[in-house]
């Protein structure tokens, strides 16, 4: 059996003495797109932050393997250059850091890890233009400080732009659909689908089924109270939409 792109084994995580993730098990093989659906507060963002390496969390047990390598002891920047990318649910604004400066620093970090030299300015400009082409990213957006003054939709598109530029092997998308109208949802989905290449894997976290009409997953996992409670094909998402989460976790609908 080939090594999965992402394997999460019995992951338990606490925040301030409270257990949020209660034994997550999940395997995403190479080239597959998996969706995680779960009600608000079930721990989806916590899972994505723990994968990316945010240090507010106490990991009490479990393992996370990225392409066979245990990443829990790695710095967030090391995980990123190893090919993990988290598209944030709430991308934050960083005043004073120019978007282009940031993109170049991120791209060069990735190149350095691969033993490549710094990218030339013309090549960089070309790469950004290419990555942004299908995302309706206009150049004025790129001239601003990172995410500063971006609308909700612009922030999400900028996340996908970063993903397209850095070409990670494992993408985690945390509620990339939240705050998007239908048109923006289509643009973002198109951008994401363009990155499906049979090798790259994705974990698409969402609260609503509608995103999965655009980014069609290979497998859907239902997440409830800090763990995966059911996995199935994309029809599971429709079933979930029809029955509500209560049909899966026994709790009352929120």
């Amino acid at each position: 059996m080939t090594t999965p792109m992402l394997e999460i084994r019995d992951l338990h995580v606490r925040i301030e003495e409270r257990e949020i993730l209660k034994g997550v098990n999940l395997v995403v093989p190479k080239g597959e797109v998996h969706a995680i659906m779960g009600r608000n507060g079930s721990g989806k963002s916590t899972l994505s932050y723990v994968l990316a390496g945010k240090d507010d969390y106490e990991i009490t047990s479990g393992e996370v393997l990225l392409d066979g390598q245990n990443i829990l002891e790695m710095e967030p920047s090391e995980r990123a250059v190893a090919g993990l990318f988290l598209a944030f649910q709430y991308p934050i604004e960083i005043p004073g850091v120019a978007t282009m400066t940031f993109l170049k620093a991120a791209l060069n970090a990735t190149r350095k890890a691969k033993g490549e030299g710094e990218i030339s300015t013309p090549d960089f400009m070309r790469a950004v233009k290419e990555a942004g082409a299908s995302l309706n990213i206009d150049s004025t957006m790129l001239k601003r400080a990172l995410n500063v003054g971006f609308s909700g939709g612009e922030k999400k598109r900028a996340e996908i732009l970063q993903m397209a530029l850095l070409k990670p092997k494992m993408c985690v998308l945390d509620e990339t659909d939240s705050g998007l109208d239908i048109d923006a949802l289509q643009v973002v989905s198109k951008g994401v689908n363009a990155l499906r290449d049979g090798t790259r894997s994705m974990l698409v976290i969402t609260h609503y089924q509608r995103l999965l009409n655009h980014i069609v997953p290979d497998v859907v996992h239902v997440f409830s109270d800090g763990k995966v409670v059911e996995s199935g094909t994309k029809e599971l998402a429709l079933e979930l939409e029809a029955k509500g989460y209560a049909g899966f976790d026994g709790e009352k609908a929120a």
Partner: protein
Amino acid sequence: MSVIPVRLGPAETKLIEQLQAVGASAEAERLAAVGLPTRRVEAYHYTDLKLLLRAVPELAEGSAVTDGSALAIAGAFRFGIANGRVQAHGAAPAGVIVGHTKGGVLTTRDDVVTRLNGAFAADALTLDLTGAVAPVIQIDRRVEGRAGHSTSSARIFVGDGGSAVIVEVYSGSDEAHLTNHSTFLQVGKGATVTHITVNLMSAKATHFATSEYLLGEDAKLRTLVINAGAAVSRTQVFPRFAGARAHADVTGLNLVSDGQHADITMDALHAVPHTSSKPLFKSIARGRSKAVVQGRLVVARDAQKTDAKLMSQGLMLSDEAEILVKPELEIYADDVVCGHGSTCGQLDDDHLFYLVSRGISKPEAETMLVRAFLAELIDPIEDEALNAALTGVIEGWLAKG
């Protein structure tokens, strides 16, 4: 009334001796009577000179010649002042008339640094600028040779409708100098001036600098103080808004590392109606160091419609660093918009996480955020060579960390 005599330390004794030697006996007597200011003097609350000024070196000899500059700015026209003496210079650029005057240039005020500057000032550089002066005017003030007590002064008039960019650089040999520099800058009606001072003194030195500004009607001034050098430094800025619609962006930056104490003290007077100011001071402190920002805004009784907002921001890069901020508003007019605010903290963890989550290493991410913190001060400097030189000062400081 009984007067308790002040106990004088070696620094004060030496200063008194030197004051007598230059014939400033009134100042000598005053200093003997009151001593250097301690923390009990409000304006020196965080910069206790009696404590911080341990020794005063001999008066610097005036014979030194210098042509080196601690800050190279491409295309700038340079004046040098070495050990208090104005150096020979090339033919002045169009619109610049160079002269000399004797003695101090600052308006008398109850401030020891100002008084000492006036008492010791000998040879003052004068510049009369008219029209749009093209090159950046750079005034290099250096102390050469062994540790010396050096005083210098410059008086600059920018004529009505004129424009100029002036940068002053304070530097010296790597000795325990005591420096006290002053600038009086008059910004004529409708004139636009940028005035930047950069303290790059040796880490052994004690450095004082005072810049006084007089703004006429419709004058526009941007100032930037950078305190990057000296063991102890205090840079004073005294803007006076004397004409309607005069505006100043008074800005400053303390960059302090282990063992350093840097103070930026502003005392601004809005003297007439319809003037505005936006003082913005930032401090970055690392190691065991201290950065001080004092900002005083005085609005005279007649100065209705004054619009003045004072902001101070601190960034602490170590647990032993201290950033001390004291804003003061003294408002005698009733129809004004005045305020102050201050923030102080460490780098934002969420900002840091966002950057590292994209593969940028933690040290690089930290540097990016420090630069971002400073961008507001450096970005408005339009002259590219000057902007690059100032960026270089900051990058140099960051690299030493």
